[in-house]
Each structure stands twice: as C-alpha cells, then as structure tokens.
C-alpha cells in the first residue's frame, strides 16, 4: 500500500483528538500536560507531512519553532506543577478550588 499525504493527516488528526480527549477527561495535571504535548506533536506531524508533499521546507522550520516553544512551555509548566504540589500536596485538578465566586 502506498502511504500518502492523507494517511499522515489522518494519523495526525487522530493524535490531536486523543490529546484533546486526554486534556478534557484526565484529572492528573502531569497526564494533562503529556496530552498537551501529544497535541503539539500531532500538529508537527502534519506540518512535516505538508512540507514533504508540497516540497516547501518552511513547514519544517516551523516545526523547529514549535519544538522550542513546547520545551519552554514544559519547563515553565513542570516548575509550576512542582510549586503547586509543594504548597498543596496534590496534582489533581479537582483540588484547584481556591478561585471561585
């Protein structure tokens, strides 16, 4: 079977949906964070696939930017989760109830 652009896009769409589903239904902050990374990587996959099939390298350059930004986001995010854990002894979203009206 020939693997074409469509197949890559379907995989990418599936990964993105799985990531989004994980963010919505999982309750642990670390797992939510992993799902977010999955969403970003799904987008990267489709960027590379488009780049390959359009023979335009701009998409792959964009992937480098995305990876860099994701790394910065993870560094800040994990630091925040650790700080929250130290303060509250929990990494579950149900326990984030200080801010309510």
């Amino acid at each position, binding site marked *: 079977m020939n693997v074409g652009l469509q197949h890559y896009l379907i995989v990418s769409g599936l990964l993105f949906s799985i990531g989004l589903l994980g963010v919505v239904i999982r309750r642990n902050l670390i797992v939510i964070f992993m799902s977010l990374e999955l969403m970003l990587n799904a987008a990267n996959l489709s960027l590379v696939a488009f780049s390959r099939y359009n023979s335009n390298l701009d998409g792959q350059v964009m992937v480098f930017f995305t990876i860099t930004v994701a790394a910065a986001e993870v560094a800040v995010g994990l630091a925040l989760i650790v700080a929250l854990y130290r303060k509250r002894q929990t990494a579950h979203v149900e326990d*984030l109830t200080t801010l309510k009206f």
Partner: protein
Amino acid sequence: MNYSLIIVEITAVLIGLGVLMTDLWISPAARKGLGYAAAVAVGCLLAFATGSLAPQHGLGFRDSFVVDDLARFFKAFFLFGAIVVILMTVEFSSRIASGLSEFFALVIFALVGMLFAASANDLVLLFVSLELITVTFYILTSFQRNRLASLEAGVKYLILGAVASAFMVFGIALIFGSANSTNFRVIAAHQTELATSPVFLLGLLLVLAGLGFKIAAFPFQAWAPDVYQGSPAPATAFLAVGSKAAGFVLLIRLLTQAVPQITAEWSRLLVVMSAATIIYGSLCAIPQRNLKRLMGYSSIANAGYLLLGIVAMSRSGSTAILFYLGGYFFTVLAAFTAMSALAEHIETDEIAGLAGLGRRSPFLAATLTLSLVSLAGIPPMVGFFGKVLLLRSVFESAPGRPDLYLLLGIAVIGVVISLYYYFGVIRSIYWGGSTPNLAPIRTSLGTKVALGTCIAGMVFLGIAPNGYLRIAETAIGGIDSAAGRLKSPALKKVSAHEAH
C-alpha cells in the same frame, strides 16, 4: 537581512538581559532602584521608537516582519504600558517575596513578544511572538508562589493557554498545507481560491480560536476571571492592557489585511462571538464580590465591545478599536495601580473591603471611581467616546446586514448592565457599611504621579479626543482593507519587486 528594522526589539531584549545581569551585582535593597532604571531605559526606547530615527516603513526577514504606521502605533502603546507596569511593580514590591528583578526582566521579555506581535506579517512570527507573551505571563501570573491563589491561577492559565496554542499550531499547519505559505501577503494574494478550500477554512478557524483565547472572547474566556483574581496586580494590569492589545493587533492584521474576503463571509460568526462575549461578561459580572474577579469579567465584556470594531469590517471600525484600546489602557492601569496601592492596607480583594475608602484616602477613592465611571462609558470620560466610536462604526456598516442592528441592541444592553455592577463598587467605596479601621492611607509620590498621568489621560482623551483619533486614523490608514495590501510607497516598491 536588514537588522535595523528590529532595532527597537533588539534594544528591548538587551534591556531585559541587562536587568537580569545587574541583579547579580547589586544589594537586595537596591532592587527598587533597578526597577526605576529599567523604567527609564524603556522610556528612552519609547522616545526613540516614536522619533524619526526609528525605522518608519519596511518589510524584512522574508516578508515576515513589517514596520508600518499600525506597527509603530502599537509599539509605542506597548512600551508606554511596560513603563507604567514596571513603576507599578516597584510600588507593589513589598508583596513579592523574592525575585523582584526577575519580575522586571519578565515584564520586558513579555514586552519584546508584544513588539514582535505588532509587526508580525507571517503566521510563524505570529505564533512565536504570542507564545513569548503567553509563556512569560504563566510565570508572571504565578509569581507570588507562596500564595495558593496565584499558583492556581498560573496552572489554570498554563493548561488552557497550552490547549489554545496547540489549536493554533494545528491551524497554522492546515493553512500552510493549503496555501503552501504562512505569509499574510501571499495568503492575501490567493484568498479567492483559498476561500473555497475547507482545509484552509478549518485552519483559519483554529488560528482564530487561539487568538480568541488571547483576547478572552467567548467561548475561550474561561481563564480570564481566575487569572485576573489570582495574579499579582501589576501582572493583571499588563495582561489586561498588553496581552489583549497584542491579540487585537494580530486580529486586525489577519482578518482585515490577510483574509478580508473570508472575514466578510464569516461576519455572522464574528457577530455571534461579539454578542456572546458581551452578554457573558456583563451577566457574570453582576454577582461578583471580588474586585479583581469583577475586572476579569469586565475585561471579557470589553473584548466583546472591541470585537464590534472587527465586525464593522471598515476603516472606522479598526480606528475605533485603536481609540478604545488607548482609553482602556489609561482606565485599567489607573484602576490596577490604585488596587496595588491599596493591597498593603486592605487585606482582602473583596468589594465590601473597600468600605470607608472614601474617607481613608479620598485620592485613591476618586481614582477608582473615575476609572469605573470611564469603564461604564459615562461622559466626559474616554470610555464613553470609545464606545460611541465603536457603536457608530457598526451602525455605519449596518445597512444591508440586519444582524448588526441586533448586535447594536445587545451592546447597548451590555452597557446598561455594566452601569449596575460598576456602580455597586462605587457605592461600596463611598457608602459602604461600617468599617472598624478608618486609618488614613498614604500613597507614595510614584503612585501619585502614575495615577495622575492615568487620570489626566482618561479625562483629556474624553474631552479632546481629536488629536489621538487622528493618530489612530493614520495608523489604520496604512492598511487598505478592501485590497488587503499595504499602501505605503516603500512597501509597494517591495511588492512590485516580489511580483516579478
């Protein structure tokens, strides 16, 4: 590569790094002085950026970076905002346990993101500059990490912000796939074909979702109240002023410059988004008892009003957005400077805690009252004139688009509702219940100067709006919204060169 185009941004990065480095050599007591020095440095940069030595027009870095009147308008706006926020942070410094210099540096790095956003002419630069702003704000939001509310606000902002940026990257991937370019000008040139491509439209929708998150428009507004309530006051002020304005400059560039035809076809979607944002912000603000949370809902409602200018799809609409943002700038900064000055004396953020403020500090009470009156849109404050301009621009575009009349009605209802909740706060300031503590509140000279400037700005722009309105019109004048092309001669030359 013409590096002179990004001289303002490079200087801002150097100021930020300079602040971080200087911190290594000075004593902790001198950190407030470092804040003043940073404010002066950004002030010099503002003078340079608005002067004639700064790059006036140009397009560079493979057309991804544009300097035009709109970009220069917003660069001045962001630089001015950063100065006030740094001064506000100096006043607020007693509430920040550690890392005051880092706070100044982070404000400047967020400023760099905004400066790049003002000039973004490519989806890649749009994404990277927005992420620079957002990631910096995750830290600023949770900066008081001994306060649970601040940490919690940071984590919520992080999760929702990361979802929004994932949507945005996926949208950019789809746009890149269908247009084979991420440049606004290339997209503008091919928009007639692209308008029929479902992949492109889905991509554009996802990018709009990401931008909608930045400006806190319905249905991406869930983070705003929590983050506004939990963040330290200077971070909230910068979020309200800078982050929102960065979202709007990118919306103006993308919707009126890159894809005006598709925006015209999607006007129904934008009308619904604007109406829902106004209604949600106004209705949810009514039962609030926390002042910062109230400001969060008020910022959602204001995002809805600002969207009116996009819905109008006209030059007067975009001009009204710029005018309203200017007025909103002074109003919100006055309110948050007053709140951070109060933070030392009043323990809670509750509106009821403001009782007796009219007697404890007539000056702070008057400032808060004036800014709330301006937010409510009562003449002669600037908020009134800004709302009139926005509503007028929609009214001008309304013939032939009946849904706009409905939107106008909703906007007016939103204004009426806002009178109720803003005046609840004012009532609490002057006629609140009995309060045990009536000790007068002293304000420092720096606060007085910052507040005086903001009040002067609010009243002056409300009474004599013409000068500022002309600046806003010039800034928008560079954009020809019908053709989606840049009009300035220097850029025309570049595009002619490109075409061939």
